[in-house]
């Protein structure tokens, strides 16, 4: 039996006025195992703590119960005091007789009775407490950023700035992401490339940053501070270390009819290509789906013209393995597919375009060199209709239930730019609501309406019909004047909902992070921990967590970096010792615990056991990683055999408390 010391605090009159503390100390002194029971004016004071420390030494205590204020207040104080007296800090229990007794009760007799019961429960628990030691787990001082858009670039730059090595894994041949495709940015109308490309160059030149372009994360193992990640470097059939990015191969390549994904398929590129002029790394990539040499071995022009011999048709995917202390997810977004939206005639009419396509059509480096022309006949459009919320704020299964957040502002931008450049063009915007919270956002939108005379009409477009004369019939309703409108447009622009990148879900599985039903990563706390995932060491940057505009994305990217830096600064992490553990002899290996663990702390191993009949058998048993476990205890209840238990809140401890209270 433990030798237990009980210390009852008066807390001035806070406790002593309603609880007869002397009676409590007296009563608890008779409990089994209690060798000393004292009361004192202020237990948390220096002299109160000394009282505890001295008693631990003098009476060789194996457990301490403090009857005082809430453990949320002073549990740590008393744990530290115990530790300094040589007692394991986890052998201290608090009976909360202030917040949960003296402060809420008036009658001294019943309050004292309750305080005694609470004290008995704590004594019953402390009998079963075991010394716990916090584990230290080392931190690998290197971060991985998954995704090389503006979010990933910002995060990587900030981490590198703090002096830590950071790798960017980008699945496209170049970093830059969606922002690289955007023409101008709201609300300042500065050119996206002008502010993004210097950052891309900065990232490529930073000695702490390694860019794995045209690469994907293949596998993630490990836990906070110590992740092992396999990265697939896809074969680009060009030796990155040799290619100078001169672009001669792309000029000479005879296969020129490949849809150019950077320009949203609005023009063509060659089979060997550099996505755009400022690509980083500026290295050519051969598209194996179109390259004649790779498809049937007949061509080889690029290899011949390359003066540095960078072309390598035999290149294979390579898997590299790296260790990281922190991982930042920055997988970004994509516009949704419009297959289910036949009413907008997107697939029938080339002059019905998405907003991202319009960005390219208006961009100086785009298919038309910056002149806005209809994709069908390359004529100037004179009437343009913008349709808002295509697939956003949908209550049916076709679209997304959420607001894509950026569309109102970029449509105002598009409308304004068009009216600025082509004042003879009439611009109509059909909207459900115009949402413009943000610094200078509403002013920007009002400028579009007031200064540029963009026709904003509250109402949804019902049907878009291409006509034989090349016009596009737009049928819509004006909800404010309650009339049906028919507009003959030259172009229709759809503000398409955005969704998380398709790679996000498999990645979330690898990272054991959580996602919502829309595949956005879930933050650890929606208000207080917005850039961390619930899985320790995994941080969230940019639109992978929810729709965001550029300033928000950058802010979140920097915030995620700050969190990652905070982790990387540490040499090791102290783990909470109140973690779950599985009794291998009882574990069924049924995986119930793993299913309810929000942190992916549980894995299974095949272990050999000696059976009673002296044979050996291999069984699957759960193993908890204490560095990852946060100690919620969900697994302990999911476990049917009771093999899983939680240190500090064990089954027997809680039941002992129940028994003491009900006695």
């Amino acid at each position, binding site marked *: 039996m433990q030798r237990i010391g009980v210390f009852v605090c008066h807390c001035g009159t806070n406790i002593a006025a309603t609880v007869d503390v002397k009676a409590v100390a007296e009563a608890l002194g008779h409990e089994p195992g209690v060798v000393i029971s004292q009361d004192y004016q202020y237990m948390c004071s220096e002299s109160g703590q000394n009282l505890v420390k001295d008693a631990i030494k003098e009476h060789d205590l194996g457990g301490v119960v403090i009857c005082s204020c*809430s*453990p*949320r207040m002073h549990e740590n104080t008393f744990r530290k005091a115990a530790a300094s007296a040589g007692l394991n800090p986890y052998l201290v229990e608090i009976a*909360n007789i*202030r*917040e*949960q*007794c003296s*402060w*809420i*009760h*008036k*009658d001294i007799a*019943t*309050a004292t*009775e*309750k305080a005694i*019961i*609470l004290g008995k*429960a704590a004594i019953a628990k402390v009998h079963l407490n075991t010394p716990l030691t916090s584990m230290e787990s080392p931190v690998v001082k290197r971060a991985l950023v998954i995704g090389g858009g503006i979010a990933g670039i910002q995060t990587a730059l900030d981490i590198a700035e703090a002096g830590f090595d950071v790798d960017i894994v980008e699945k496209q041949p170049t970093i830059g992401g969606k922002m690289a495709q955007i023409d101008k940015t709201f609300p300042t109308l500065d050119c996206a490339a002008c502010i993004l490309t210097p950052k891309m160059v900065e990232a490529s030149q930073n000695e702490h940053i390694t860019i794995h372009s045209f690469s994907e994360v293949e596998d993630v193992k490990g836990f906070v501070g110590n992740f092992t990640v396999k990265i697939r470097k896809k074969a680009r059939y060009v030796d990155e270390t040799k290619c100078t990015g001169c672009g001669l191969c792309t000029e000479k390549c005879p296969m020129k009819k490949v849809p150019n994904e950077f320009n949203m398929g609005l023009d063509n590129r060659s089979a060997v290509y550099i996505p755009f002029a400022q690509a980083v790394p500026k290295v050519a990539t051969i598209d194996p789906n179109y390259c004649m040499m790779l498809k049937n071995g007949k061509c080889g022009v690029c290899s011949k013209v390359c003066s540095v011999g960078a072309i390598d048709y035999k290149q294979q995917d390579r898997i590299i393995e790296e260790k990281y202390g922190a991982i930042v997810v920055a997988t970004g977004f994509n516009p949704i597919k419009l297959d289910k939206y036949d009413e907008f005639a997107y697939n029938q009419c080339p002059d019905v375009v998405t907003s991202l396509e319009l960005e390219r059509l208006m961009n100086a480096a785009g298919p038309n060199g910056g002149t806005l022309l209809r994709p069908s006949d390359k004529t100037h459009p004179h009437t343009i209709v913008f349709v808002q919320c295509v697939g956003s704020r949908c209550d049916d299964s076709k679209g997304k239930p959420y607001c894509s957040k950026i569309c109102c502002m970029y449509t105002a931008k598009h409308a304004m730019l068009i009216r600025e450049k082509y004042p003879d063009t009439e611009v109509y915007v059909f909207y459900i609501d115009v949402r413009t919270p943000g610094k200078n956002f509403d002013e920007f939108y009002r400028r579009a309406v007031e200064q540029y005379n963009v026709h904003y009409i509250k109402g949804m477009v019902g049907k878009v019909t291409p006509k034989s004369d090349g016009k596009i019939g737009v049928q819509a309703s004006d909800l404010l004047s309650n009339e049906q409108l028919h507009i003959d447009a030259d172009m229709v622009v759809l503000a398409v909902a955005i969704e998380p990148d398709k790679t996000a879900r498999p990645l979330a599985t690898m990272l054991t992070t*959580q996602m919502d039903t829309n595949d956005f990563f*879930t933050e*650890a706390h*929606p208000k207080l921990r917005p850039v961390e995932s*619930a899985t320790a060491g995994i941080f969230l940057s940019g639109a992978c967590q929810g729709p965001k505009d550029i300033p928000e994305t950058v802010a979140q990217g920097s915030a995620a970096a700050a969190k990652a830096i905070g982790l990387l600064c540490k040499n090791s992490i102290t783990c909470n010792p*109140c973690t779950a553990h599985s009794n291998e002899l009882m574990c069924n290996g049924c995986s119930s615990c793993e299913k*309810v663990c*929000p942190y992916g702390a549980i894995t299974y191993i095949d272990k050999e056991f000696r059976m009673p009949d002296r044979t050996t058998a291999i069984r699957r048993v759960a193993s908890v990683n204490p560095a990852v476990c*946060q*100690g*919620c*205890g*969900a697994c*302990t*209840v*999911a476990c049917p055999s009771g093999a899983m238990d*939680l240190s*500090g*809140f064990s*089954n027997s401890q*809680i*039941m002992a*408390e*129940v*028994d003491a*209270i*009900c*006695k």
Partner: protein
Amino acid sequence: MQVNENKEFQPLIVAFCCNWCSYAGADLSGTNRLNYPTNVKIIRVPCSCRVNPMFILRAFQRGADGVILCGCHPGDCHYTSGNYFTRRRMTLLFSMLDFLGIERDRTRVEWVSAAEGAKFAATMNEFTEAVRKLGPNRRLEDLRCRKQ
């Protein structure tokens, strides 16, 4: 079960409170001096999902007249999903107890945040009264544990 001088039945209520929300909510009702009966005895658990149905049955066996489980509001769990599991487990457990004819009002789940001191006190007042009306737990008690 306690019987005081005016012989009013004093039910014993065991309250399991999650450390992050409800236990803090209980502390807050203390800080604000919001009264609730001494019948309520709180056991701190890291998360409502730590509460095994065995603990609840144990409490009834040993003489509790009501058991209440408090956790963070759905969506606010400190461990992100713990209370969602709690909700399913307790719904099914309570439904089973009801199926066995145990009075429904002896068990309850309530979501109380760290800011809801008033709600905590109100809940405990209400629950204690509901259990008081039911009288002593006889259908799920262990006679050997009955106090004389």
